[in-house]
């Protein structure tokens, strides 16, 4: 390897190095790299969730049986939808039942997406509804499966999901470490998901509820209040004025002091950190997070940002000592209930004392 380095480092000074040879050596090093465990799990989930469709090999009497079965089904199964269901509708893979574009096909929002039900980020397109029967959709890039009851309308725009009306059960594969949480918007705020199963109901009149089966979610109300739900808990909206959540025993949001970041600023911060991560600007992301951590009022949000900072230090920056110091501080401040297992793995990987 020393000759290789010497050869490559000279790219510009004196003798000119051959870029192809240099890249081949770099390539040989890269071939020792493998997918990280989180990415591996994320992609494996994607592959395994693919519906197992048997390829029928037509031939002999088996073909006759299959044709007969198909004809029987054709006669017996009621066909309510005149149009065949497309396989992908507005970015959702339809894996069960029938789903179709909702609202004007030109992309205008449905009538529910207006002042009467102030969903804050109404998508301009990507709104889908089930017919008179339930349907199952997958947002595969988000590793999310949605089981919609009849007469339910959902939407998506980039990495965000929306429930406009109806009932839906969301199954979200665990988010990769450090990735921003998936957001599901409802009329009174949004739900941040880290990997979980939960059910949502949203009425056209602005009432709704979320109940959590497993995992952890946070409900971020439009007015900035943040409520964390534990498995088995339920939260209904509209929320009572300034009195915290109606159902779950989660902590009410702290009153922001003048020096603290507003919910909008926290949201902007999260977007900025996500952008920096995507651009590979990890040092800048850690600086941004460090500056902001002391200014976040809500403990759960602060814990989440602190975890993100640790994840970046662990996986993207070469200073293992700094990462270990951060995890020690994190555990002292927040304990290990929420991200305990992930932090344990990170510390093992780093060889922290």
């Amino acid at each position, binding site marked *: *390897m020393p000759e*290789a*380095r010497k050869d*490559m*480092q000279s*790219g*510009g*000074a004196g003798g*000119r*190095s*051959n*870029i*192809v040879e*240099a*890249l*081949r*050596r*770099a*390539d040989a*090093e*890269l*071939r020792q*790299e*493998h*997918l*990280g465990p*989180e*990415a*591996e799990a*994320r*992609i*494996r989930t*994607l*592959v*395994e969730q*693919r*519906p*197992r*469709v*048997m*390829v029928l090999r037509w031939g002999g009497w088996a073909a006759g049986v299959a044709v007969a079965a198909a004809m029987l089904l054709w006669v017996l199964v009621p066909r309510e939808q005149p149009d065949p269901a497309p396989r*992908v509708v507005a970015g959702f893979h339809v894996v069960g039942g029938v789903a179709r574009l909702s609202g004007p096909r030109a992309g205008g929002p449905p009538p529910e997406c207006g002042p009467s039900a102030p969903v804050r980020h109404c998508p301009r397109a990507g709104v889908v509804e089930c017919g008179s029967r339930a349907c199952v959709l997958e947002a*595969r*890039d988000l590793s999310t499966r949605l089981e919609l009851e009849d007469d339910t309308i959902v939407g998506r725009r980039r990495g965000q999901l929306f429930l406009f009306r109806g009932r839906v059960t969301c199954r979200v594969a665990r988010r*990769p470490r450090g990735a921003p949480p998936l957001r599901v918007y409802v009329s009174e705020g949004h739900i941040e998901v880290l990997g979980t199963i939960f059910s949502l109901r949203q009425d056209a009149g602005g009432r709704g509820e979320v109940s959590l089966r497993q995992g952890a979610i946070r409900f971020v109300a439009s007015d900035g209040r943040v409520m964390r739900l534990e498995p088995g808990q339920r939260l209904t909206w509209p929320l009572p004025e300034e009195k915290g959540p109606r159902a779950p025993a989660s902590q009410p949001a702290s009153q922001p002091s003048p020096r603290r970041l507003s919910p909008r600023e926290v949201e902007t911060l999260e977007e900025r950190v996500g952008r920096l*991560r*995507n*651009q*590979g*600007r*990890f*040092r*800048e992301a850690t600086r941004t997070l460090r500056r902001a951590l002391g200014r976040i009022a809500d403990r759960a949000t602060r814990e989440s940002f602190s975890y993100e900072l640790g994840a970046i230090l662990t*996986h*993207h*920056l*070469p200073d293992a000592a700094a990462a270990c110091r951060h995890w020690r501080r994190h555990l002292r401040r927040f304990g290990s209930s929420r991200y305990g297992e992930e932090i344990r793995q990170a510390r093992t*990987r780093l060889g922290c004392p």
Partner: protein
Amino acid sequence: MDQGSTADLLYQHHRDRVYQLCLRLSGGNRSWAEDATHDVFVRMLERLDELDDTDDLGGWIYRVAMNTCMTRLKREGSTWGRVRQALLGAPSVSRDTPERRVSLQQDLDAALRALAALPGRQRVAFCMRHLDELPQREIAASLDLSEGYVSKLLDRARSKLDRLGWEAPDA
């Protein structure tokens, strides 16, 4: 074989190769390469039904991977320079010993800095031609570009690398 099993097998056989291709094109950025690998398998699953022969899909997956990376690089073109700076400041390619980390960093810095200076299409075409040794005709077909345009991309890449002080082969 059912499609689910096919998808599983394809994933098991090709995940590392796809990831390493993405890693090379990203200049060693692990998180970028992981996301790109995810995209490649999303595409693979979407198109699996259309394939007649699923026994030997290595070439097909290679083309999907190159196209996916090219699309991502093109989309990020305006910010790539900043990403590259961040990459060079914080390479994320090693998980091993400090010695290997240092060695890798130096090697990758030198070689990948030059590669990362190329725009997305030039980078993909250059790697396909000179590292994977594909003929221009095949590169053109894989990337859905004309052969003349591929030739132009390779020429531009060579000129740029030349300006950066590297010896680069002719197209």
